[in-house]
């Protein structure tokens, strides 16, 4: 039930972010200083910001950027994480030790610090943010994959398939992937939620993306000085971040419970 609600929230935010920029006629960067901080009206359904820019359009464009970047960063963390985790579990020995040490070293640095280091290379650009997030996030997927695969590869079911003559690809497809997919999906859902928060937080402290680019965290920063004049303007981006993260959390925690129900 709450899972369906989570899906509905995430779907609503995704659709708004994907279709919004196309169908909303207003330009997110067009300033109209005469309509400064205007309340919701027919022309501006969500009102305008301190530079008179249409908030609805900015919110949709920002969503495309925030969500897209979060999904891209997590995808780029899952792929190497899973591949390296499988390599460590499969090869064992030196490969495993080298990869596990690299993972431990990454974990020893606070995640935001890694993003800051990479983002510092080219401030205000999108790619360092994406690269930095992926570099901080891959470890979780590596550890999950390594732990799951290591137990499974030594289990009777895999022993049986090996004795019956099946190769590594079959073992991956029939044994490893079905066991790995549910916890990986859960972790990735949490991961996207976390990345949306991180992008917002980085934008808010001015290290992530820069104005006039529309991004939820950045919108919060820009609107914060005008809190007393137009509190509703600040509510929109906050609501978007909340809906996205809360929806993803609902999806992830429900599927984690589902995975816990089956003992094997």
């Amino acid at each position, binding site marked *: 039930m709450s899972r369906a609600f989570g899906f509905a929230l995430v779907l609503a935010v995704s659709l708004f972010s994907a279709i919004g920029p196309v169908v909303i006629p207003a330009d997110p960067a067009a300033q109209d200083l005469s309509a400064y901080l205007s309340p919701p009206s027919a022309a501006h359904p969500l009102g305008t910001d301190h530079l008179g820019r249409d908030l609805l359009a900015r919110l949709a464009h920002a969503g495309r950027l925030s969500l897209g970047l979060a999904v891209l960063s997590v995808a780029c963390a899952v792929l190497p994480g899973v591949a390296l985790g499988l390599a460590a579990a499969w090869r064992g020995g030196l490969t495993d030790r080298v990869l596990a040490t690299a993972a431990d070293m990454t974990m020893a640095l606070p995640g935001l610090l890694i993003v800051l280091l990479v983002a510092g290379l080219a401030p205000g650009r999108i790619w360092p943010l994406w690269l930095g997030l992926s570099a901080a996030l891959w470890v979780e997927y590596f550890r999950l994959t390594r732990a799951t695969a290591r137990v499974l590869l030594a*289990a*009777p*079911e895999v*022993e*049986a*398939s*090996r*004795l*019956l*003559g*099946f190769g590594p690809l*079959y073992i991956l497809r*029939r*044994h490893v992937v*079905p*066991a790995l997919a549910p916890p990986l999906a859960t972790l990735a859902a949490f991961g996207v939620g976390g990345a949306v928060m991180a992008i917002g937080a980085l934008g808010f402290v001015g290290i992530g993306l820069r104005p006039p680019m529309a991004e939820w965290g950045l919108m919060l920063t820009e609107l914060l000085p005008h809190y007393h004049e137009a509190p509703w303007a600040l509510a929109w981006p906050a609501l978007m971040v909340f809906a996205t993260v809360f929806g993803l959390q609902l999806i992830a925690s429900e599927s984690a419970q589902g995975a816990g129900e089956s003992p*094997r």
Partner: protein
Amino acid sequence: MTRGLAVVDLVVRARDGTRPVDGVSFRLAPGVPLTLLGETGSGKTLIAGAIMGTLSADLVATGSIRLDGRELLAAGGADRRGLWGRRLALLPQEPWLALDPTMRARGQVWEVFRHVRRLGVAEAEARTAASLAAVGLAAAARAFPFQLSGGMAQRLAFAATAAGEAPLLIADEPTKGLDSTLRDGIAALLRRHADSGGMLLAITHDVTLARALGGRAVILRQGRVVEAGQAEHVLTAPAHPYARQLLAAEPSAWPEARHPPLGRTVVAARSIAKRYGARPLFSGLSFALAAGETVAVTGPSGAGKTTLGNILVGLVRPDLGTVIREAGGARTRYQKLWQDPPAAFARHVPLGRLMDDLLRLHGIPRARLEALLARLRLEPALLGRAADAISGGELQRFALARALLLEPLFLFADEATSRLDPITQQETLALLAETAAERGLALLIVTHDAVIAAKMARRRIVVEGGEARVAV
């Protein structure tokens, strides 16, 4: 007040209306052991749960359970927990899992004297020393559980359970997974409890244990008592057909396996050695298996029986020595059956799809699978189910069918029936021996049951204490 346990018309109801225990009555007097005998699903563990008060929330017990005149079913949860360890105690299954791995042997018994019996520190220490000496563990008082052998761990678990001096001792499957030496040890300890005037309720599917305990025996099937009486009578000349079937499934009652003429050698070990960490399992072991031959591997838990079989099928390399397989014999013609059938199949996938994968990989005609299923008395409809949705006996026959599809020369059965009920165990092993004889394949069986080893095999390999030898 009458001393003893009286169970009258006990019914355990599940939420869906079924009755896994359906009107069971028996009396247990001090000094006379009572054994509840039955297969998995006969309701015997639920009866123990109803007596202890540990049934899960979706089960409801009705009827009457009186311990020394006091009605237990009417008592509340806290009252019943207050009886645990003091009036009634449960001896844990698989003692090495029940002991605290971080506590020395002495402490595990001492805490019962100190905190359950509430004795003074000095007295608890004295009683602990006496109790450990009584089970022959005086020298191991300072040892941690991982430093104890299986038999010692079992005696320690018994000492800790008995320290509460509860008059009623319930032993649920006390011999599960134990070899015959350990089984005799636990039977002697349980008998001693009854002989000293305690009440003993043993719950088992092990007929040998029931016989060793004596006293009274109750045979259960599908939640009902099918036969009850003096153990020596019930266990030698039962009246009910199911009871007769259960006794006939006891390994000692099996017919001798017929041994077909031996063929060429299919696998040979040349002075192989293997260590587990720093501990040697065996070294300098040489033997050969011929087509049509059955060899049993016996020895205590953890001695290296499975490792030896895994070396022969090629899952594990020996540290020293070589394994010679028949020239031209493909690696897939050396197959294995596992102890826990569901663990040996990919999860959540219908068995039919797994079989199709195998047929496709090796280009095996489908007719061969159909013939095998018929031979192993498996309904083709079962192919539509996943491994965890069919019974253990059926699944182990599927595992056998899967191995036989590859026309093996050698089959390694690793405790392949030890998790099955006695009747299913006998059926499965008989079928395994028959098909092995028909096809002339060499069979290596690992078992902790010396009687099964003697019935099935002419030769034995004993793995024990860091060495292995071939015995006839």
